[in-house]
């Protein structure tokens, strides 16, 4: 039973995730000055959906905040408030709080109440300002919904007075008749329920059991009109039901409100069998099937403590400064009341992985896959029938296999398309990272996103989040200068960071470009020397100096700030990107900014490879890195004084790498390349080229990438391995590493400098 509930909750959180993305998108559009009606409506809808869902799960914290948020957005929607940058900023902040609250409800960290309150006040200030003299809504922490509540009272009273419920004044209160008294809390009205519904429900029950109900309204608690607080609930009702009515059916009526309404059910009008509000926890237990009962279980407990003040206490609990909430803040996640409790209970550990294991896919992609699999079945049947033919059908067979090959490839593409996801989800999260970094460093930075629709394998999308967060924080903290410095340098005071994604030659390229001060190479160099990362007399190119910031333990920040400066960030970034089979390059112009380029493989599973032979064994070179192939021409090969060779290809010189000896495998003939050898011109991401000498080119094929690092150490020049058609293992070459090695060797500088840069 609770398993079903978890499933529904899970769906709710997934939807929240989507709504939050929608919200983020809308607010970004707003901040770009695009304040069309559609945009505002989309934003409003997103918050509204979150609120609606949260309410049906009884996630009080979330509902309360979403409500305030929604009210403010309503001001925007109705045109009372104009979306000025200030206001959009407030909304963005509120969105962060909202998404944190969602995370909290999911069992994440408890959100700081101060932050919620701050954002709430800001939100209310918006409609406060915007609606000018609109009186009743300004009542501080009271959500606008409260206002209609007293109005709702009227019809109830009227209904009662006019005997709408089929009340018969003289209905005999049998000795065994069932007496139900209930007093709703203000929270019940807030939730959109009404005492009227309960009365109708009770009278229905009475009618169903062949009797009528007798209703009395207790107005004793009602103060004089002058001191009446509109948002409080003062009334309670006493309903006498016929004896035939079983208690269970009465419980059913109160199922949905048991946590926000005091109910007493007694037989025989007189001797109360100690049911009163103690019964409620039990009732809540009984009603586990309905969503609120679980999360709200602690509330009745509070009610027990102060039954008389119940309505007050309930409305009190709505202000974040209330005692209950203070306790909540002090006692972090586990046993606290309200939303976190039911989720923390039991399956926090299991929920997250489960959530990550699901994927939402466009239906047409799944359909494509389905079609292809159908084709595959047909192809298999065709092969089978050929196999049964008398004459062997050699020719036919080859043809079929060829078409099956295309099919396999299509299926593979289709599966990858299913796994592919736009990087948007990660990119949009970065907006928040930048916002937070800005508020911590007191800088004003605008993050522009480009190519969010670029699709990458899902595993990659998830793993990109951490490195990008690090890099963007760094960009705000170190890259962008303070506003004064910027103005002094003749730049606009607002910093710009561009985060873009795109496909390039079978890889995904992500660039993070800021218009800050660029890398201060002298300072980097000095720091590197000071920290012993390089020798004091080392001579480095600009590029190598830039790369020093990736060295472990490197940090130029003179003081460790909240954001960065601990000297772990960039090192971790580099490791993470390398771990994904990617590479990081830096381009920095002093005074104009820094650009980081991350180049990542599209998928972690398959690559197009060229099968070559070196030292007698077959190896795989990723096709994407091969520029051209050619036969060796001895006239074009020159030997450098240190013994290395360069080859001139149409005027361009590049290092010549005899692959076999480069990999330390024997079998390479001494005396330079022979006539049969083939040259493979390869290129790394930054366009540096080298020529590999291989013995032969066998084939071109798709290969499945298999990790060897799990069972073996990392090998330089080899990125992974694959299994060929004959079952043998073949190594996949790490071309950029080979090129880098070769270029390094041709270099004139002493080798100890370079080894320092190996990291």
């Amino acid at each position: 039973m609770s398993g079903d509930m978890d499933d529904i909750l899970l769906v709710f959180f997934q939807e929240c995730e989507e709504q939050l993305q929608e919200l983020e998108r809308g607010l970004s559009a707003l901040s770009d000055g695009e304040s069309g009606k559609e945009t505002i409506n989309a934003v409003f809808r997103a918050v509204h959906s979150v609120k609606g869902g949260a309410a049906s799960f009884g996630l009080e914290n979330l509902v309360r905040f979403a409500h305030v948020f929604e009210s403010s957005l309503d001001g925007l929607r109705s045109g009372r408030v104009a979306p000025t940058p200030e206001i959009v900023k407030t909304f963005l902040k509120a969105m962060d709080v909202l998404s944190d609250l969602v995370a909290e409800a999911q069992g994440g960290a408890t959100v700081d109440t101060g932050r919620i309150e701050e954002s709430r006040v800001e939100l209310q200030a918006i409609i406060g300002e915007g609606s000018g003299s609109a009186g009743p809504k300004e009542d501080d922490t009271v959500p606008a919904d409260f206002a209609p509540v007293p109005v709702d009272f009227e019809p109830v009273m009227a209904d009662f007075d006019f005997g709408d419920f089929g009340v018969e004044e003289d209905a005999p209160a049998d000795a065994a008749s069932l007496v139900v008294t209930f007093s709703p809390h203000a929270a019940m009205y807030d939730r959109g329920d009404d005492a009227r519904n309960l009365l109708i429900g009770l009278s229905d029950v009475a009618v169903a059991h062949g009797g009528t109900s007798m209703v009395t309204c207790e107005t004793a608690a009602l103060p004089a009109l002058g001191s009446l607080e509109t948002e409080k609930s003062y009334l309670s009702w006493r309903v006498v039901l016929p004896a035939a009515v079983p208690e269970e059916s009465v419980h059913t009526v109160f199922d949905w409100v048991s946590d926000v309404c005091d109910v007493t059910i007694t037989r025989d009008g007189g001797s109360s069998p100690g049911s009163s509000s103690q019964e409620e926890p039990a009732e809540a237990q009984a009603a586990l099937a309905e969503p609120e009962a679980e999360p709200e279980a602690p509330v009745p407990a509070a009610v027990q403590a102060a039954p008389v003040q119940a309505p007050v206490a309930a409305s009190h609990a709505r202000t974040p400064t209330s005692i209950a909430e203070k306790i909540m803040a002090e006692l972090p996640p586990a046993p606290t009341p309200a939303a976190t409790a039911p989720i923390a209970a039991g399956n926090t550990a299991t929920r997250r992985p489960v959530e990550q294991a699901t994927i939402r896919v466009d239906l047409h992609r799944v359909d494509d896959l389905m079609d292809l699999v159908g084709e595959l079945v047909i192809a298999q049947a065709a092969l089978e029938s050929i196999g049964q033919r008398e004459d062997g059908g050699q020719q036919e067979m080859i043809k079929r296999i060829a078409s099956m090959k295309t099919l396999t490839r299509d299926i593979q593409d289709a599966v990858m398309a299913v796994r592919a996801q736009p990087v948007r989800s990660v990119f949009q999260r970065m907006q928040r990272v930048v916002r937070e970094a800005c508020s911590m460093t007191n800088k004003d930075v605008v993050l522009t996103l480009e190519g969010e629709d670029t699709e990458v394998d899902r595993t990659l999308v998830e793993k990109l989040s951490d490195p990008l967060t690090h890099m963007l924080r760094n960009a705000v903290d170190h890259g962008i200068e303070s506003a004064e410095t910027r103005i002094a340098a003749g730049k606009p005071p607002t910093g710009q960071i561009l985060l873009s994604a795109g496909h390039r030659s079978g890889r995904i390229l992500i660039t993070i470009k800021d218009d800050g001060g660029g890398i201060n190479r002298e300072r980097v160099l000095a720091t590197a020397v000071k920290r012993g990362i390089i020798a004091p007399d080392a001579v480095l190119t600009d590029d190598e100096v830039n790369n020093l910031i990736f060295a472990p333990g490197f940090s130029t920040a003179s003081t460790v700030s909240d954001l960065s400066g601990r000297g772990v960030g960039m090192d971790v970034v580099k490791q993470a990107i390398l771990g994904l089979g990617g590479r990081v390059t830096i381009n920095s112009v002093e005074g104009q900014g820094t650009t980081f380029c991350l180049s990542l493989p599209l998928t972690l599973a398959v690559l197009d490879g060229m099968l070559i032979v070196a030292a007698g064994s077959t190896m795989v070179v990723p096709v994407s890195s091969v520029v051209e192939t050619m036969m060796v021409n001895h006239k074009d090969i020159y030997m450098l004084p240190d013994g290395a060779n360069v080859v001139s290809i149409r005027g361009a010189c590049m290092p010549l790498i005899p692959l076999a000896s480069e990999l330390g495998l024997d079998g390479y003939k001494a005396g330079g390349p022979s006539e049969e050898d083939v040259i493979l011109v390869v290129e790394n991401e930054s366009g540096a080229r080298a020529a590999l000498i291989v013995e032969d080119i066998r084939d071109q094929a798709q290969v499945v990438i298999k990790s060897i690092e799990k069972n073996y150490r990392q090998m330089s020049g080899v990125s992974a391995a694959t299994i060929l058609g004959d079952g043998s293992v073949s190594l996949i070459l790490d071309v950029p590493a080979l090129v880098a090695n070769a270029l390094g060797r041709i270099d004139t500088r002493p080798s100890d400098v370079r080894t320092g840069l190996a990291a």
Partner: protein
Amino acid sequence: MTDEAGADTKLVKMIVFAVGEQEYCIPILSVREIRGFEKTTALPFAPHYVCGAINLRGIILTVIDLAVYLNVEPLPDNPRRVVVIVESRNGTVCGLLVDRVIDMADVNLADIQAVAEEDSSLSGLVMIADRMIGVLRLEVVVGQLVGGMTS
């Protein structure tokens, strides 16, 4: 002494194999399977005792020539060489190329006579039916494979 066994079980089932003239044993629970020796793919910058990589139903693993590793003379032209696929406790899978697998034996841990060196690949020696058998410390052998990066 061996960390290959639980605290209370004194008897450990070992698989005994021969490398050259010498016999060695490892706990049978660390053995995944035994298969014939096939052609391996040479690995760059590999230590000299690594024969290369093989494909075990989709898992790529390296094969260690125990004769080279332990520095003993292998039997010449032995067609019965087999690869013992072992899995070390940290999950690393690798193959050990041995000359032949002899049998299984119950070894009482108390009977193992420790050898002096702490980090040696032999954790001790044990007598089984008058034969002196070395007890291999798998973690050390396999650990060196995954260890540091070559450059």
